[in-house]
């Protein structure tokens, strides 16, 4: 078995990388895949909190890197899903405690036993980002429909290309359809027009995400939630399934525009 390494990154902070990592990992595990998610945000860890596993941490990523424990010992099994594990970041160290080659080594070891290794990248374009993308087979960029987040996503897409890890895939998080219709927010089509990469998800702006994050229970595991469905759709697309965007979002005019635009982009890149 050789697992795929998926790195979730964004450039800008606070756009929802950690939430997306937790939910995509949970959705993949709920589909029956063996998944380990890894927090590469050394010094500012919070994937453990979002997954509700904070109190079970014994060893962390830096302990593995520095040889104080084996990878297995640092893995925490999720409370709800049998096949979901977390490797937490160290809170008391900084990004320089880990080097890109350490990440590659650890991921190569994990590939033997897991279908998916999902890495939560820290914000920024420095060492932590380089650590997170060094082992990646696939890079997923999270952005929000706001100009500054899109600008940073553009920069990151360029850096990912330069590291020969591209083409990156895109998730637009926190879309508020009412605001888009009123013209107060960038539409997904506007974001795609600039970034010109493959879209794998649109996640609505939903206060329930905040609640689930605080509770440490990923919203992707709530069958009735539309936002949870959006994350489940992303997970399915990442496994190679074709999932139409109308499944997670009913507005035809809006989506018609997106799919039209995606087709024209494909044509241009070909």
């Amino acid at each position, binding site marked *: 078995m050789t697992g795929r390494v998926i790195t979730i990154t964004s450039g800008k902070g606070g756009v929802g990388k950690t939430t997306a990592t937790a939910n995509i990992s949970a959705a993949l595990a709920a589909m029956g895949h063996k998944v380990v998610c890894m927090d590469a945000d050394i010094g500012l860890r919070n994937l453990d909190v979002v997954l509700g596993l904070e109190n079970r941490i014994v060893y962390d990523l830096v302990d593995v890197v520095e040889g104080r424990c084996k990878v297995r010992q640092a893995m925490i099994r999720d409370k709800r899903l049998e096949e979901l594990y977390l490797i937490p970041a160290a809170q008391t160290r900084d990004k320089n405690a880990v*080097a*890109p080659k350490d990440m590659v080594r650890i991921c190569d070891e994990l590939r033997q036993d897991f279908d998916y290794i999902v890495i939560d990248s820290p914000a920024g374009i420095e060492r932590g980002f380089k650590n997170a993308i060094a082992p990646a087979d696939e890079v997923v960029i999270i952005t929000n429909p706001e100009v500054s987040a899109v600008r940073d996503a*553009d*920069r990151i897409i*360029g*850096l990912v290309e330069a590291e020969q890890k591209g083409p990156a895939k895109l998730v637009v998080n926190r879309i508020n359809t009412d605001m888009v219709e009123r013209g107060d927010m960038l539409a997904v089509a506007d974001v795609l027009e600039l970034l010109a990469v493959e879209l794998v998800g649109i996640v609505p702006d939903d206060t329930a995400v905040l609640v689930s994050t605080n509770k440490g229970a990923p919203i992707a595991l709530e069958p009735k939630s539309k936002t949870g469905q959006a994350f489940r759709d992303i997970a399915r697309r990442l496994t190679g399934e074709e999932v139409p965007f109308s499944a997670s979002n009913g507005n035809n005019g809006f989506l018609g525009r997106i799919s039209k635009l995606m087709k024209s982009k494909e044509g241009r890149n070909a």
Partner: protein
Amino acid sequence: MSEVEAIQIDIKGIREGLLVSLPQGEWPALEQALLDELARRGDFLKGAKLIINAAEHELNVATMSRLRDRVTDSGLLLWGVLSSSAQTERSAQLMGLATRIHDGARPPDTEPVEEYEPAAPQDLGPDAGIMVRRTLRSGASLHAPGHITIIGDVNPGAEVVAGGNVVVWGRLRGLVHAGAGGNEDAFVCAMDLSPTQLRIAGHIAIPPAERGQVSPEIARVQDGQVIAENWTLG
């Protein structure tokens, strides 16, 4: 290996940081010699910005990326790569590294271009230009002494600086500077001309935020002012 010891790495301080000049030689050995030299100087150089003059060495992105990681591991920052090789320069630009250093002593109008050595084997004169077939994303920077043609978009946060004209067959939304050597006759044209800022020679213009129908436009200096008009043949 006695050959490695013979490699002379020259490091000198300039305004931007440390300029490292690499001699002739085979690449892996040179890279090692550089890192050994950095290690030998130890803490003295820690945190400094490094600009490497790679001369005609051909470096691809993977090699340069590894070099950057190793420089970072030595506690320094790889900030720029100067080269007369087009391949090396392209790699550096892709990685968002500087490919040219400023000389602060000169006024901005006459600043950049003359110290640049063209990558082309023969000098094609002032009409020489380069063509780039990709989108320049935020953080990318493209500098050339002659004309620049881009087939693709120039996104916000990217910059294009040419001694001559700039033609963008796509959307131009970043910063563009034509006639950077002071040529007032330089022009900029694009299928969609909406740069963050547009400079021609010493003139700076900020295009209006709201525009109507998008059509190809050309910007040039007329009576001391930057003007944009429809780009038509003839």
